[in-house]
């Protein structure tokens, strides 16, 4: 998955659409960058990021947008559910893992941080604040089991996760409309499972 930088005209247009009604957060086309990322589970909506490089630390805001309407990623799953209901979600065996990586990256859950681990061993070295790692939406856990209930369209994924700082095996269900439930099953001992 590759980010595409928006040209100046589109950047100016995006800033005009998303700028806050207050003056406390400002984005100038000269010191800001806008980029977008195609997501395999949405047909018409892309992930957009606007970054102000003139502040320290740099300040970014993320949106889901069809290029017309922008939904701000506010740390809850509300914008995701809104898009899922409005524009539809393509959930399949191929897209369920990218969807979960995306979901856990953008939704702050009461259980704490959750990350699908590439392997249980990754728990020892993963950096929670490594944005590049968090945004590897195509990363596939090993081992993994993906089962589909063809009656309901619900997927059940069993995979290693970092669950509030601990490596766990979790069963994650993803309904047809994109609702995610994460149930930790057992603690993983790195390298011994």
């Amino acid at each position, binding site marked *: 998955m590759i980010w595409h930088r928006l040209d100046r005209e589109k950047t100016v247009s995006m800033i005009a659409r998303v700028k806050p009604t207050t003056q*406390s957060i400002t984005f100038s086309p000269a010191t800001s960058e806008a980029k977008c990322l195609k997501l395999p589970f949405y047909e018409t909506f892309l992930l957009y990021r606007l970054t102000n490089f*003139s502040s320290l630390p740099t300040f970014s805001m993320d949106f889901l947008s069809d290029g017309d309407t922008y*939904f701000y990623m506010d740390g809850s799953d*509300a914008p995701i559910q809104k898009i899922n209901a409005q524009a539809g979600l393509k959930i399949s065996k191929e897209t369920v893992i990218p969807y979960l990586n995306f979901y856990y990256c953008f939704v702050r859950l009461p259980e704490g941080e959750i990350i699908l681990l590439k392997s249980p061993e990754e728990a020892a070295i993963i950096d929670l604040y490594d944005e590049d790692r968090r945004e590897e939406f195509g990363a596939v856990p090993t081992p993994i089991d993906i089962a589909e209930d063809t009656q309901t369209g619900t997927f059940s994924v069993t995979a290693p996760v970092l669950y509030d700082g601990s490596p766990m095996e979790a069963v994650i269900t993803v309904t047809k409309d994109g609702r995610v439930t994460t149930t930790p099953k057992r603690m993983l001992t790195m390298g011994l499972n």
Partner: protein
Amino acid sequence: MNDMLKEFGDSHAQMAGSIDYQHPQAQIILDECQGMLGKLPEGKRLLDFAQEKGIKYQVITGKVPDFHISGSDLLVLVCPANTKAVDLDEMACNMGMGIRALEQPYIGIPRPHPGNNTPEGIHAVRRHFLDITIEMCKIVSEIYDMDNKSKIVDLLDKLGHRELYEAYRSGKSKEEMADIYFKSVNAV
């Protein structure tokens, strides 16, 4: 967080274009963060400074807890919409670091200007981040001394500042802490 647990976690999606990104629990978040900082010696000092200088606050929603300063007197705190998912210590620490960032020009640390790649500009950026990170160690240390909870220390560890934190706890000089800090950030 505490009162923030009330009836929260089911916010509506915010459509950009007509909003200010204001967090619906902004006042509660500010009250709780100030309440927490007010229990710490350094936190209280920072709050007194903020009051004396008329620093203003704003809380917006966002993916992760963070802070951002705007102009010379506005601190913007970023807090996820679902406050059940947010640790009060972490938010209070962000508030403390943000106030410190606004205090820097008053104590001889000039505000850095990104993009200024002159030796002076680079030096200003380094001083800014060193000072903010030591401030974080100070606040985390006081939170730990107050309640012995290690979660906030673990967070600092995850950010890669364990060695700096231990140096601060053991009373190392500013020069020694600067050496440790720049060694750690240069290693990344």
